[in-house]
């Protein structure tokens, strides 16, 4: 039967007669307007990100910073558990040049200060040593960003690492009824056309 004639036949035939020409569907799968709902995973749940923005030394410093600024606590994940540095590596690769420069210079600066004062990179400092380099984060916050680029970087990284952690799959998974809050959720607007 040619395709056009087949389509005409389908249109003309009562539904019951068409069904009768085919094997009955399995009883457990009744025909329904409701399609099955499948579970899907986000990439972070199934794979490791490929680093593409920070150098090895910059990334090591960022991970160290993440562990200090947003440590795991009270059974919840910290920045490292939430792969926040890995996520920021992706985000910074997509970001405007001034943001990229802030991070690169900031992390290089931390390493330079650490080497100058303690003869080792920031990632290898003891907690007390690292604290000394994080003094700008203990200053009263003002709307005028610090003139010092290192201070500007630290304030930015503090918030970015925190947000990347709180907004992670891992943070959400650690939520408990009556206990730790889940990450933020909201009404997402799809592209409207």
């Amino acid at each position, binding site marked *: 039967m040619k395709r056009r004639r087949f389509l005409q036949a389908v249109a003309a035939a009562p539904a019951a007669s068409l069904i009768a020409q085919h094997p009955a569907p399995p009883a457990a799968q009744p025909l329904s307007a409701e399609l099955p709902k499948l579970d899907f995973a986000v990439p972070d749940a199934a794979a490791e990100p490929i680093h593409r923005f920070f150098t090895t030394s910059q990334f090591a410093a960022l991970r160290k910073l993440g562990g200090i600024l947003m440590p795991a606590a009270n059974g919840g994940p910290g920045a490292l558990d939430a792969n926040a540095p890995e996520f920021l590596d992706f*985000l910074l690769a997509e970001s405007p040049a001034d943001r990229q420069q802030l991070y690169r210079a900031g992390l290089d600066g931390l390493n330079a200060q650490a080497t100058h004062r303690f003869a080792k990179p920031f990632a290898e400092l003891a907690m007390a040593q690292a604290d000394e380099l994080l003094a700008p984060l203990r200053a009263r916050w003002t709307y005028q960003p610090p003139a010092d680029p290192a201070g500007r970087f630290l304030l930015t990284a503090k918030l970015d690492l925190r947000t990347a952690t709180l907004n992670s799959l891992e943070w959400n998974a650690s939520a408990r009824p009556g206990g730790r809050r889940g*990450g933020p*959720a909201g009404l*997402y607007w*799809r592209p409207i056309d």
Partner: protein
Amino acid sequence: MTNIDYDVLIIGSGASGGMTAYTLTRKGIKCLMLDAGPPVDFTRDRELKPAYELPFRGFGKPGQLPHVFQATEFNANQWVDEKQVPYTHDPAQPYNWVRVRLVGGKTLFWSRMSFRLSDYEFKAKDHDGFGDNWPIAYADLAPYYDQVEPIFRVAGRREGFPQLPDGLFIEDNSPESKANQQFIAATKERGIPNTKMRRSMGRGPLASSLNLLLPDALATGNLTIVPNAVVRELTVDRASGLVSGANFVDRHSGREMHAKARVVAVGASCLESTRLLLNSGIANSSGVLGHYLHDQFYITQTVQAIVPEARGGNTARALIGGGGLIPRFRNLKTKEKGFIRGYALDWSTGGTPDAKYIPLYGEALDKEIENCRGAGFSATTMGEVLPRFENHVRIDKTVKDAWGIPALHIQTCYTSNEFNMAKDAVSTLEELCHACGWEVLAAHDRMFPPGYSIHELGTCRMGDNPKTSVLNKWNQSHDVKNLFVVDGSSFVTGGSQNPTMTILSLSMRASDYLAEQMRRGDL
């Protein structure tokens, strides 16, 4: 092909376009409404998602909407794409043009703050000598506010403030929390007025043209809405000099179309309406079209403080929470040294300060945030911006949008009047917080760039003199008598009040006049 002669062509479906349709169709007038955007389906077009499911984990796609500070990764798709509909400005004088192109316009997403203007605005020049008076007084618009407020179901508390006239409110006599009582007492001691926020309750989830105006207009059978219709220009009958309709392009197909009508009412939002008139080359014998752009400057979180008594989880509703509005109180009976006009303050208690305000990190930061969860105080300053001739928009012929329509160039900046006003707002708020014994974490007077408030006004202002204004007191073009511009572009001054109630009332008033003129055969 259907080519109907409509009585009135309405461009835009937001507050002003929606109210124009609502008013005219109920009087039996056949209207065609064109909107540049698609219809929105709140069930189909949005879904609840955790931030981790978003591609950029809630940070948003870098550089996607550089001028829309309100944009988040959740709502990025509700705003106009700046690449599709670009505009230009001097890099040293940024302007945040925040736009929505959906049926219902910005009323789909507005903050619902619902205020009346007073004669401190309508007759501002009489009061302090600056600028111009409106060609109407408060008494002219009051009957229309009286009709608009019940439609939008405005809640508020009657106070008798001359600078913020009362409306037909759903009375809000909800009790104040202890922290709020403390703050209100501090305002009273200083002679600073305070009231409940005045807000449109709407119906169901919205207080929008989409659910409050357009359904009634459609039910009359007198309204046809065509979405995705990007108006390119208004057309003019050369013999009469009157507008004859509009050329528009279908957003999806790119097909060019023409719609005819006896009268055109433009309510495409302040700057889009002016852009349309400029691109059409009409209604500008005064040379004023595009000028006197103003808005309200906003300083969010002007002061961020902690209420010490609420630390450690003492955040029961009786203790803290809720908010209020301090209406303009400067330059009413006294005269300030550094500025004219005034500002309003939208304040609230019960929030949690953002981590950026707390000079700690690691576990210490987490503990401090938990300790002050729900114990915060913050306030937003909303200041009047003076309408100045030099703050203007014009067509930038070198840049065109996705449909080849020339873009707008926006040139505006704030001046010492606004900056001095902002400093006064900060010191006032700090004084009030200190008087309450609250811990001020941060205070600042850094306003967002012009446009941020999404209250762009002026550029097509009304007036009695055709040489200094574009519209007469009925929102009707001085030059083209069958052309009305019914949105916020008609404002002469804006005060510190959210303008939506005034836009709705003006468009209803203009529509009443328009209908009467049609009935008499004058249009």
